[in-house]
């Protein structure tokens, strides 16, 4: 298995190369003059030139590309244009808050939706199934703003169940503030997740082995829990893993509405400020994370599906 992981890591190199090329092209070649952006409102041509020099923008593109590669290898992504903060520090400080929102919310959402989807598969085509399906679709088409504004106004302000917004850097204190965003995160993911998992289970339910299980005398729930769920793990893992990098990116809206100092807020700010080094770094780092999670999912595939061997 270690050999496999090693080989997969080697395979990542060309993809990473592609990602650096893509981000570089987007932000350096077509992305506009950062020196003008950085100079501010009382700028003079002399100042702009100085900035251009200090950012190395006068050098040939390939040199700039190698600089970018160098940054990546040393994990030194430089400093934000708008705040002069160290980007790597911004990232490492943001990961914790983002994860403490998204990870528990994600786990709750997955458990809840997988359970619900199994229920739907069990009572497929019943009234319960149809009503849930339509509800999911309705939830899907409602803007996330509605959930946030409503949750904040009603649950927090009117009913006083949660604080309106805020954050406590300590581990014990932060949960108080995370309650509402977690609830909203779960609500937001219900719709699409349930629909997806329901399809996955329905795809499995018609397989021959299910008939065999019935012929053995197993009851429907036994079949679903034991046989179907285990076989459906592959698409489930695929989806779960695909969503993982977004957990680190956090939930852009939730973070800015609830004042959670995570990476989502960083990204939104970086977009508003056209803070290219930050966007570039976030793009690259999330790509790396995505690949790591891909690798994890491949290893997990082998765990749940004995047919898959890691060679």
């Amino acid at each position, binding site marked *: 298995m270690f050999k496999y992981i090693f080989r997969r890591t080697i395979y990542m190199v060309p993809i990473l190369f592609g990602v650096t090329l893509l981000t570089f092209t987007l932000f350096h070649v077509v992305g506009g003059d950062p020196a003008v952006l950085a100079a501010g409102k009382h700028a003079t041509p002399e100042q702009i030139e100085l900035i251009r020099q200090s950012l190395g923008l006068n050098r040939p593109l390939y040199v700039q590309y190698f600089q970018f590669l160098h940054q990546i290898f040393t994990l030194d992504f430089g400093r934000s244009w708008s705040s002069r903060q160290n980007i790597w520090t911004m990232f490492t400080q943001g990961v914790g808050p983002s994860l403490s929102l998204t990870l528990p919310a994600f786990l709750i959402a997955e458990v809840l939706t997988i359970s619900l989807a199994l229920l739907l598969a069990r009572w497929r085509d019943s009234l319960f199934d149809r009503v849930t399906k339509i509800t999911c679709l309705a939830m899907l088409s409602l803007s996330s703003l509605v959930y946030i504004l409503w949750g904040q106004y009603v649950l927090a302000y009117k009913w006083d169940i949660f604080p309106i917004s805020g954050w406590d850097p300590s581990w014990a204190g932060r949960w108080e503030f995370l309650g509402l965003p977690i609830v909203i995160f779960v609500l937001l993911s219900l719709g699409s997740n349930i629909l997806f998992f329901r399809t996955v289970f329905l795809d499995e339910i018609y*397989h021959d*082995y299910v008939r*065999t299980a*019935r*012929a*053995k005398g197993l009851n429907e729930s036994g079949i679903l829990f034991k046989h179907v769920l*285990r076989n459906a793990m592959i698409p489930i893992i695929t989806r779960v893993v695909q969503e993982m990098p977004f957990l680190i990116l956090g939930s852009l809206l939730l973070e800015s509405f609830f004042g959670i100092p995570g990476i989502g807020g960083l990204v939104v700010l970086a977009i508003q400020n056209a803070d290219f080094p930050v966007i570039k770094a976030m793009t690259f780092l999330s790509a790396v994370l995505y690949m790591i999670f891909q690798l994890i999912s491949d290893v997990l595939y082998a765990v*749940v599906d004995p047919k898959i061997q890691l060679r």
Partner: protein
Amino acid sequence: MNSNPNLIEIENLAVEFKTDEGLVHAAKNISFSIPKGKTVGLVGESGSGKSITSLAIMRLIASPPGKITNGKILFDQKNLLTLPEAEMRKVRGNRISMIFQEPMTSLNPVFTVGDQISETLILHQKLSKKAAWEKSIDLLNQVGIPKPAERIKSYPHEMSGGQRQRVMIAMAIACEPELLIADEPTTALDVTIQKQILELLANLKEKYKMSMLFITHDLGVIGDIADEVVVMYKGNIVEKGPATNIFSKPQHPYTKGLLACRPSLDRNPNRLPVVSDFMSEDGKEKPYDMSQLKQKKTNRVSSDEQNPVVLEIKNLKKYFPLKKGFLGGTQSYVKAVDDVTLKVRRGRTLGLVGESGCGKTTLGRTILRLVEPSEGSILYNGTNITSLDRESMRGMRRKMQIIFQDPYASLNPRMTIGAAIAEPMYIHNIGKNKKERSDIAASLMKKVGLEASMLNRYPHEFSGGQRQRVCIARALAVRPEFIICDESVSALDVSIQAQILNLLFDLQDEFNLTYVFISHDLAVVKFISDDIAVMYNGKVVEYNDAISIYENPQHDYTKKLLSAIPKGIS
């Protein structure tokens, strides 16, 4: 003790399916019983309703679309059809168990076989996990899995087809059921494996004093195993009775036709009788005299003038890389075709026979360069086609055609039959215009026994046999000299198989065609071939004229193959 000699009695069972085309009566008015300790063979072709009947006993018919509309299934004085679901679950897998056709898909791929066998034991016999495991090992031993204590930890995909079916059997007999339903349990297996499984089932039946319902389309198999036979046709039972009676004195014309159309090793007719020879469209009997069949000219002499060698294969090899090395280098190979040398004469048929995985299909495709050979040469009329460029090869394709096993898969489902037959003519500039090509297509349709008016229809609107006729018509469209028939009749019901074989025979005579006929079915190969090559593990182990091979097999493997053929009818 219940004095009823019958374990289960089925009365007036009727099953309906809702489909897009409307209601289909899959089983109508089915009544038969299974005596204690006996094997009942339920035989019929596809669509006869035999599987539906067996699933109805287990109440496993998916609903919707299926529905049991009428009847009783009396088991232990209880009507299974009205049993509460919870009660029924106690019957399934415990008192009645079932094995299926496809052991690979019927086993859950993500659990070890041990888990799956012991699951039944834990469920019904309330054994502890450990006890169930022990018993599972014992069961695996009983069904003839070597080293059961080790193999029990295997996953289904780590076993061979035959072993998987043994596992299914172990699972089914785990609770020592009173009735074992076997739904086409050997159809997906090679003939030698089939023999072993049949023997195993017979032994187990004796040992556990079970009754067995054995469902198959293969009369040969039924003859070997069944005490009583029920013949089904279009959802109805047409005939039932003791096996010996059915085989020796069939009453219903359908049964007669079915028995007659099977190619046999002993006879050498120049054509096969078909069901419609015995039975008219409305089900009435037609008089037919078996003796009117002429014997095939034995040992058709092949002379170099009349029958020059068209195709010569020399030391042909095809290796598939099996495992990629660490940095992409290939480390080991599957030798699919390993040093094969063969000759085919014009107007003659070479039969390629062997079990699955022996390389016969790869060989067929390599000859047409659908698969590029690794080594060796293929001479067609003296031209080495392995070295032809793409253009010349395309010209060559006009002369060489192939007919695949699955006629549905080999027809483009989005193309009308007319377009499919016209396409090769268009590619090879046969016929001046669309009109002319469609005229040729119409005449080809007649040639293969279809109506020209069907040209506008799509493949899914035809039956399996008709589709295979279309494939033949399409192959003929380029006026080929040489056709490879790759398991071309294997997917067809036996009555249709006879028709297609007859058609191939007729066409060979008419167009002086050369065939390479690939099949796993020795009877079929013997019927159609002049020469036969037996393949085993990529190699040709025996190569001789057809009669000699059957009458005087030399190689051990050939002997084994021949002895494994069910002797039911003889």
